[in-house]
């Protein structure tokens, strides 16, 4: 029982980190209709900015949680305006290749700036210990990740369903031309959405920084995981990102514990099963896009 609870908690904290990253990927896909390979790079930038702020400039963790994602969002604005803008309206293959190229560029730039060493960031003081309940002792930082994911989930739900900005973004996602004719500044919305998606990737990077090794391969590792999440949940679907992240979290948390021999391939089996049975993803929109 205890091992079951431990595996469940573990699945949840993996899932929440994946959710934060994948939901950004899905929001970008929903409005821009691009599959953003560079998302992994933006996540990595979030982690490296945190490292720079916390370990090199000796700033506390909390202001970094604010500053690093904003800095990444600023980078994203530049990327969107100078690069991505040129391939809108083209086939999804083009944006896939272009953002893959961006991932290569970000990977190498990070190595040029911060070197190829392995770095770590300490969790903030109050999140360093363990918390125990129901006979299970669990790292408080992992619990913080779960809480952060839930808070973000609620905030995003409110943003998209209860605010004017949310309605504008949803309108732009459904029909850009229509949104334009009713007086919405669509190019601005598009830039904003991309920056917001990047901000979410970077929040994921900051949250990951105190618990995962920061090295130049971290962006490549996360992006395939995120793809699996959005495919399982449904491309472009906001609740789908949550469900996909939970499924993949459970695959990792329980698969590693109870089916270790095939843990390498379990996520792909999960993704293939979903694609075969319900190609648009568990919560995807109707017909295949």
């Amino acid at each position, binding site marked *: 029982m205890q091992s079951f609870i431990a595996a469940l908690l573990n699945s949840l904290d993996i899932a929440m980190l994946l959710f934060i990253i994948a939901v950004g990927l899905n929001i970008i896909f929903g409005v821009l209709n691009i599959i953003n390979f560079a998302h992994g790079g933006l996540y990595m930038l979030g982690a490296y900015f945190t490292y720079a702020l916390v370990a090199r400039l000796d700033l506390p963790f909390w202001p970094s949680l604010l500053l690093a994602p904003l800095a990444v969002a600023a980078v994203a604005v530049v990327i969107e305006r100078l690069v991505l803008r040129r391939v809108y309206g083209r086939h999804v293959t083009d944006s896939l290749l272009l953002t893959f190229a961006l991932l290569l560029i970000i990977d190498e730039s990070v*190595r040029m700036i911060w070197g190829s*060493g392995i770095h*770590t960031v300490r969790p903030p003081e109050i999140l360093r210990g*363990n918390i125990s309940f129901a006979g299970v002792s669990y790292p408080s930082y992992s619990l913080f990740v779960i809480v952060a994911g839930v808070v973000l989930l609620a905030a995003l739900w409110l943003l998209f369903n209860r605010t004017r900005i949310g309605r504008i973004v949803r309108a732009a996602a459904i029909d850009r031309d229509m949104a334009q004719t009713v007086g919405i500044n669509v190019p601005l919305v598009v830039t904003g959405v991309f920056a917001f998606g990047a901000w979410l990737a970077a929040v994921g990077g900051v949250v990951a920084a105190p618990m995962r*090794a920061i090295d130049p391969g971290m962006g490549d590792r996360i992006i395939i995981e995120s793809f699996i999440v959005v495919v399982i949940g449904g491309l472009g679907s906001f609740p789908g990102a949550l469900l996909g992240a939970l499924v993949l979290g459970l695959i990792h948390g329980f698969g*590693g*514990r109870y089916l270790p021999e095939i843990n390498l391939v379990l996520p792909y089996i999960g993704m293939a099963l979903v694609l075969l049975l319900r190609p648009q993803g568990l919560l995807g929109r109707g017909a295949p896009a």
Partner: protein
Amino acid sequence: MARLRTRLPLAGAAAALVLGIVALTAPAQAQQPIRLGGIFIMSGSASVYGQFAQQGIQLAVDEINAKGGILGRKVEFRIEDSQGKADVAIQAARKLVFQDRVDALLGIDSSGVATGLVPVIPELRRPLIITHAATPDVTGKLCNPYTFRISVNVNQNMKAAALVAADTGAKRWTTIGPDYAFGHQSWEYFSKYLKEIKPDVELMKETAFPRFGNEDFTPFINSIMAAKPDGVLISVWGGDLVNFVRQARNLGFFDRGMQVLMTVGAATEVLSALRDEMPEGVWLGTRYWFGAHDNEINNAFVKAYMERYKTPPSYNAEGAYAAVYAFKAAMEKAGSTDPDKVAAALSGLTIRAPNGEITFRKGDNQAVVGPTWGRAAAMSAEHGIRMLKPMRAFKGEEVTPSVEETGCKL
């Protein structure tokens, strides 16, 4: 393409390179420089190993050139990126040999790359000194007269680990290792040697092999803790090891009184990432430890390296550094850079390296060399990493299996 070039700093770099070569070769020497070709991982998450090796080679080459070079000729080196892939490394080796006309090859960071490249080496007809990859096969069943290894291999390190493990008194052993050849071979050899030394140990069936590049080790840590072993061999390495240690620490893995042996735990890049998060008291192994060898070569090497790169040399830097000196000794012994003569000279050659006198054994071309193991002790204020205490630098003779055992037939 011309348009592209102007946009890149490449043109500048190319110009600088050309100028550099011109400047180097300018002193009206009729003789060609001696060229060394390195193949390391220079991109991706393991590129830190390539970076250390590059620094080690640079230091050795500069020292040698300052003292007149080899056979009166300057030494140059060039490094190609293996990307950690065998086919890329093979093509890189061909380029170094046939296009760049290097006289000798060194490097190789991963076992998979080594097993792919080594069978091709005789066709390239250049001596290769492996400085990092630890798979037993390249000085075992795949061995050939051109391939040498200066670094500690899996057998040697696992023999030492078994000796350390036997001393701890722990009875029930298991492992957590990366799910590829290295992790499985480490456990295989460790089991074999430990059973030989202490027939009453129990080698558990409950092992854990998380995939390489796995970022969350929690499920595997929990499984192993639930199996209640007395001792655990950890062969996870690099960034994975950093992740593993931090997660295991949070889960109380190190508080259960288990004996924990990390086969590549005393790698400086891991220690400097973890700092005091590396728990005190665990056993850490490494192919070379900068503080383990009190001889003048090591003292000079560590001092020069620290001055230049502001960090203590990792095992990979030492392996690459020593390999350059091994080529120097072999070329001077052969009196030429002819690849066959250099390879013949390397076989059986004894050199003085930072980690002591080491010999490339005739029979399998493996250096008779041992790892250093020690317990993680207090932090060093100077280096920002944990030091090893007590510490044991194994002699090559103690841990190297006989040539017959390796399966090498030269």
